[in-house]
């Protein structure tokens, strides 16, 4: 019970602090694609893979006082900053969740900007297609983001780098 909540908290604890809901969404999606056992359902939305379940889960964790959310005004819109609270750390002590290499991956992703993570998650969403088809999808569906061929190549390399970190050691 509450295991899925605990996993999200574990990911946040591993990252330290995550700035931006979009970034949080993409990081969990990428982690899920790396075979970390997150079960939130993601659909393709305007800005790439998005999970309403994850949004609700994070809201619940904030309401329970396990996550600290700071709303900041940034230009014409708001941005949210998330950290684990002390109560959250105590809650997490009730669970023995083993996700080897999660910390390395979350920290690495946290160092990337959300625009790049949006591209990485989009590439992963279409990874069943050939590289050429993926590029076509990115250019078509993300035309406003103006991603370049070079950025797409970097996204592929980054995915390889993360997969190398995880190797075959992720367990459910």
């Amino acid at each position, binding site marked *: *019970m*509450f295991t*899925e*909540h605990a996993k999200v908290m574990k990911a946040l604890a591993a990252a330290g602090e995550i700035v*931006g*809901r*979009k970034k949080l*969404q993409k990081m969990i999606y990428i982690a899920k694609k790396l075979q970390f056992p997150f*079960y939130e*359902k993601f*659909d*393709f*939305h*305007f*800005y790439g893979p*998005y999970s*309403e*379940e994850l*949004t*609700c*889960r994070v*809201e*619940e964790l*904030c*309401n*329970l006082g396990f996550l600290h959310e700071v709303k900041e005004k940034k230009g*014409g*819109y*708001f*941005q*949210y900053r998330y950290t684990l609270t002390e*109560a959250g750390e*105590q*809650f997490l002590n*009730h669970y023995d969740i083993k996700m080897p290499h999660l910390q390395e991956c979350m920290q690495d992703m946290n160092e990337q900007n*959300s625009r790049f993570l*949006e591209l990485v998650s989009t590439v992963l969403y*279409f990874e069943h297609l050939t590289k050429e088809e993926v590029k076509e*999808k990115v250019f*078509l*569906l993300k035309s406003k983001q103006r991603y370049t061929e070079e950025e797409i190549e970097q996204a592929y390399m980054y995915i390889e780098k993360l997969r190398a970190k995880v190797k075959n050691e992720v367990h459910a």
Partner: protein
Amino acid sequence: MAYPGGQLSEEKVFKDPVHRYIHVRDKVIWDLIGTKEFQRLRRIKQLGTTYLTFHGAEHSRFNHSLGVYEIIRRIIDDVFVGREHWDHSERLLCLCAALLHDLGHGPFSHSFEKVFRIDHEDFTQAIILGDTEVNAVLRRVSDDFPKKVAEVIAKTYPNKLVVSLISSQIDADRMDYLLRDAYYTGVSYGNFDMERILRVMRPREDQVVIKRSGMHAVEDYIMSRYQMYWQVYFHPVTRSAEVILTKILHRAKKLYEEGYNFQTKPIHFYSFFAGKVDLQDYLKLDEAVILFYFQQWQDERDEILSDLCRRFVNRHLFKYVEFNPTNEQMTKLIELTSLFKKAGIDPEYYLVVDSSSDLPYDFYRPGEEGERLPIYLLMPNGELRELSRESVLVDAISGKRRTDHKLYFPADFIYDFSTKRTTKKKIIEILEG
């Protein structure tokens, strides 16, 4: 057979309690409705276990799918036609995607998806693209037409305006299910002025926007969505039925894995238990089949399976208490788990926490830039403004988070003092404390 002209010689209509009439003029739509995969939706209830709380909620995904189609047809034919940004050559694609958007839903699909780790949207894609009657009808339009329909439903079609009609924060899907679910459950708060919303919808390059003058109609829609979420979709009794249903599926799977000899063999479930569900197996399963098994399993030798099935079939549901997983409550939960075991009541099946995030519904949130596309109002000067920045009402309800967790348990077992009296008294003390 192609679709020369594509129109029926005479318009067909379906009488509908929500939209009064559903009009079909395109032959491809008429043929899709007649396919066996679409007809299967008659045997899948739109609201799953809600009929155990609101007895009128027996409507099917078939009704809803026709409703979504009709809303899209009205938007396109009555409001969008001839307007800037709207490409009328996308009309048939929109209508087909609207009609087929829920095609992959299975029986009690929310529980099934959780237990068997499947996704109905994958099956929607598989039906549209696979060797099916639906695919054969769509291919008569053009070879790449099934792929386009599948892309619109998967939200990966390049024309984002088309996608937003079927799937966005104010789309035809949501408008139909709110009105339809309100009608069939008999509640009054799900209603809003859809006709007005349709009249003030305007196509933009990437999405549908709403004229500022229609803001109050949209406020009603947002309120309706909020009320339906808490009063109907997240009703604690419905969740109790859902919890039991989920536990039945878990138990049957576990027994199968342990080699238990079922009196009624779960033939229709084998591929689900094995995690290898092919399309043909999936399409054979509907609610009539599931309820047949539950009926039969009431007499199984396994006490847990038979008890859970009796509870579901006879609406003998679990009771609940509020539960917030604070440190103190978590300690109590650990204690309860141990007391349940001591009382001979397996906590794996009879002590369950259910959270609002376990539900496949949402209410409106403006969110943060780049998170999810919000509803935009088209101001008289041509500027776009996010809804909650203009509407005090929407700002008030979308700014306040509300979540909910409940702990479910079988009260009849706990209050039966014929066995383990002392342990059960302790359980009650904790639950009532």
